[in-house]
């Protein structure tokens, strides 16, 4: 479980990009939604430890910033532009090594991850030769390395065609079953296909954190995702489960 308590962060001194964030995220697919500039990327960067704000972030009581914490979390950024001259296999082996996978198990782990993400045919290809969809699958394979409990995917389906997107949903559902997956997205299709719960951010605050079913009926009537989006974008109060 991912715990965030009283997280505040500002890029400048008298500015708060994130205000008093309190979240407990269980296993399952949690979609992090919000308009541009709401603080999604900042929140993700705080969770991954690239930014440090006040408050605490823990995974299974292990605080953010420690080496053990880094091994429990996997991150796939929006732009996965890793070194183009490396082969896919080399990228996955590198990630496996840093995730603490024992040397003798690296090869097997890479092969397994490649199989699960349908990238085994491309292991010897240079990364720059891979298509965009293939690159994302390599990113997912990298996220499978080690014993990560929390998987963060930042806008993973941006720029992906509908067919590839469907394939992508299948893949991540199979690969990350039982793990805590947080997906940041603008795409409503992602919410419909993947969400077990929703976190909505607006102007640096959490305005909604509900299981998907409750989110859909939270307005007391049938509402479209666009209407729900607009409602929680303007909300001041936090609606949590």
């Amino acid at each position: 479980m991912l715990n965030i308590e009283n997280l505040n962060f500002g890029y400048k001194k008298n500015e708060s990009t994130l205000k008093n964030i309190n979240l407990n995220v269980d296993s399952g697919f949690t979609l992090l939604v919000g308009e541009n500039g709401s603080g999604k990327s900042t929140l993700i960067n705080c969770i991954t430890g690239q930014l440090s704000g006040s408050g605490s972030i823990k995974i299974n009581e292990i605080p953010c910033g420690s080496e053990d914490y880094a091994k429990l979390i996997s991150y796939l950024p929006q732009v996965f532009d890793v070194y183009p001259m490396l082969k896919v296999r080399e990228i996955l082996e590198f990630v496996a090594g840093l995730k603490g996978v024992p040397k003798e198990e690296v090869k097997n782990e890479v092969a397994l991850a490649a199989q699960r993400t349908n990238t085994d045919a491309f292991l010897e290809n240079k990364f720059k030769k891979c298509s965009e969809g293939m690159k994302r699958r390599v990113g997912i394979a990298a996220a499978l390395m080690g014993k990560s409990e929390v998987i963060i995917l930042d806008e993973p389906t941006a720029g992906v065609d509908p067919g590839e997107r469907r394939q992508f949903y299948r893949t991540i559902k199979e690969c990350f079953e039982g793990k805590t997956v947080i997906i940041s997205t603008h795409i409503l299709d992602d919410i419909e296909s993947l969400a077990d719960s929703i976190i909505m951010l607006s102007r640096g605050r959490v305005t909604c954190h509900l299981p998907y079913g409750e989110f859909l009926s939270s307005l007391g009537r049938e509402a479209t995702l666009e209407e729900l989006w607009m409602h929680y974008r303007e909300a001041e109060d936090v609606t949590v489960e």
Partner: protein
Amino acid sequence: MNKLLFKLNSKLIFRSFIFYLFIFLIFGGYAFFSFQLLSDSYYSNYVVFFDTLTFMDAVMYVLLFSVAVFFSQQKNTLENICFVPRSKSVGVKFLSVIVCSSTICVIPFAFMLISGIVEKVGALFVFISVVYGVLRWLVIILIAQTFGFLIGYITNSVYSYLFAIPFTILNTFLNEYLFNWLFSGDSNRMYSFSHYFSSQQKFAVGMPVEYRGPVVDTEFFVKFLISVFLCLTIFFIIIQIAKKKFTFKAMSGAVVSAVFLCIFSAFYFQLHPVRYSNEEKLYISGYKTQPYKITSYSGNISLKEWAEYDIAVGVKGTGDAESVTLRIDESLDIKSLEIGGRTADFERSGDLLTVHSPDDEFTLELRCRGRISYVSNANSMNIYTSAVSCALPPDFAFLPKIDGDKSQKQYDLKIKSGNTLISNLDMEEQGDIYIISDSASTACFFSGFLTQTEKDGITFYYASCDKLTDHDEIYRIFREDSNLYFDHEKNEIVEGKWEEKPKVFIIYYMYGTNAFAVPYDDFVMLHFGFTTQIRGPIC
């Protein structure tokens, strides 16, 4: 983690186009210019040829600087998604760039090794030349890439490549223009600062002492250590910048490295050769003549970089005097000076040593130690002592002398030398000890890669590593064709033929003689020619 990061960075570096471009330009440049130079000129040995390519050091500097800038500005996406701390990914990248670039040291290594075997110069010469070539290039690599990475990382802009030019000017022989302007008139300071900042060998265009071989001495190693500590200092500074907040470890690493850098820098300036004038060190005509003469020298000398002298000097009075002034080079520190077992009453000023209230005849028991390192006005480091070579010419006060004393002296010395030793005095060689028991009016010692031949009762001494010079022809020209020679007592060129001597030293160029022969009582010094000659009739 560090091992994995290093492996990753090595793969990235060795597969990058800029590294290919760098390797291609270095290999291509050296191959092209080697071919050009070899088709134009002969070289006395392969180290001289290697030094002729010193201009390529500046090109290498620009390329190394640019490679470092390139990698300093690479994004670390893969490391970031694995949550590698930024300071670690930057630090390992910095070290990886240097290590991977250092693989080009295989060029000087292979060149020196193969050439040494082909030219049959002997194991010691080959070993020294390999160390010389590899460490020289490592110094360039360390300095160029340290600055390149720092500039590239801090500015994070394409404009940082343009800094390659000013840094190349500062860190190569091109800085002489700058320091000439800064220290106009003071050539000692000019050259010491120029060589300190330069990543190249000192006095690259000076006349080399050929039998010395590559100049690998304490100063050379100190230069290498300076580049290492500069690299470490900047490494810790980069780590500190990457961490974005003050960390004691990084700052203390930077401070400690900087302290060592300062210490070795100060040491370097101390070791830099001092410029000498012939009138002060070699051709002193009757300065401060004394009513004393030296009758004998006996004792032990250990010839190494900080040479040690434990000698007894017999002095005999020829008139009345309350004191006697001897000349002994100021770079030798006197540990003890005794007469008859008691400390002598003396004072020292520069090269002059004045002993008060001496008897008519007495023996000075002198123990001294020092590093002799002088460079002539022609930028030739031709008075020095080192572990494998020395040049202690006649008239130079490495043993106490009395100005104007031309009497015969008895030399009974044991000299320990790390390489072949030659002298105008007769010697018996026992391993690395040379036993001298001979008399002469002056003495000289030269050690290094030397050899000798005998012809018509004359012993010729010359550099064993010199494949170019026709020594017979040199002797013939000086003996038969020339009608002038240099009189070392009068410090002037004199018309006439000099008498044949039993020993001929065709070893190095004594500046101030205009390359004329310098005859002494029982030997003559001749200029050996040049280390390179344009293709044509060899002389």
